[in-house]
């Protein structure tokens, strides 16, 4: 029988805080909201710690819950009637300063304009380096849907980048 893994909450926070925060920030496009989501996700982890069976399970659980809570936060924000576009513009200004490459910053801005499902699939694919099967498991979505999200999202992002970044380079 394998030795039982004993999760240490503080170690888990240390290990995964960047991942959780990055996922939330890329899903919401808002640093403040992302930090709030990250805190909520870790508090939820604390109350579900007994159910976590392994480090892999913890990582999977955190990804899944972060994406889900980010989607909830976006939905709440839409319901409250706050213009997402205005928020995105504001937050991109902050991100653009943080990015080392202006092209990278612009690409990240364009990612925020994608539909939620496509954005989640792309973030999990390129930030977390997950396979479509793993993304499907993390999102609780059918594999075909995930593949379609990846394909369409990438196509849309390419198209936006081809148009937008060319102008950006010329303008610079």
């Amino acid at each position: 029988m394998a030795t039982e893994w004993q999760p240490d909450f503080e170690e888990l926070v240390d290990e995964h805080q960047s991942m959780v925060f990055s996922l939330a920030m890329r899903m919401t496009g808002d640093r403040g909201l992302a930090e709030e989501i990250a805190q909520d996700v870790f508090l939820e982890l604390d109350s579900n710690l007994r159910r976590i069976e392994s480090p892999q399970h913890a990582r999977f659980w955190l990804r899944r819950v972060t994406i889900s809570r980010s989607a909830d936060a976006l939905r709440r924000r839409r319901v409250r009637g706050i213009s997402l576009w205005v928020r995105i513009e504001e937050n991109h200004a902050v991100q653009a300063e943080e990015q080392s490459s202006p092209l990278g910053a612009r690409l990240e801005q364009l990612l925020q304009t994608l539909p939620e499902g496509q954005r989640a699939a792309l973030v999990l694919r390129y930030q977390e380096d997950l396979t479509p099967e793993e993304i499907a498991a993390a999102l609780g979505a059918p594999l075909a849907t995930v593949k379609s999200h990846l394909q369409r999202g990438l196509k849309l992002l390419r198209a936006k980048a081809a148009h937008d970044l060319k102008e950006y380079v010329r303008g610079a």
Partner: protein
Amino acid sequence: MEPEEIDDFEQQLRLVLEQVPAPPGLKRRVIERRDAQRTARRRRVMWWGRLALTTAVICMLAGGWFWHGIQQRRNGQEARRQVILALRITSRALTQMQLQLAAHNQSVLNRKQDEQE
């Protein structure tokens, strides 16, 4: 973007979407909120515990008081039954005594009449 750049698009996206460091102090804030939640939960549990204990004590006292009332009523009924029984016995004894006295009086009267005749 030029076509060769678009070929590198996924690679570029991977670079752009690297994990960003969490804001400084995130862990501390999480731990603080967790501790605050635990304290609040502990207080809630204690509050409910006290409420349950108080309710249990009140129920026990009310039950005791109710039981005491029932016992008193039972004792009263028993005493009443015993008094009635004692009264019945006394009444029967008095009746017998009265009969005996009447019989005695009658025999005395009869004897006097016999002596006068």
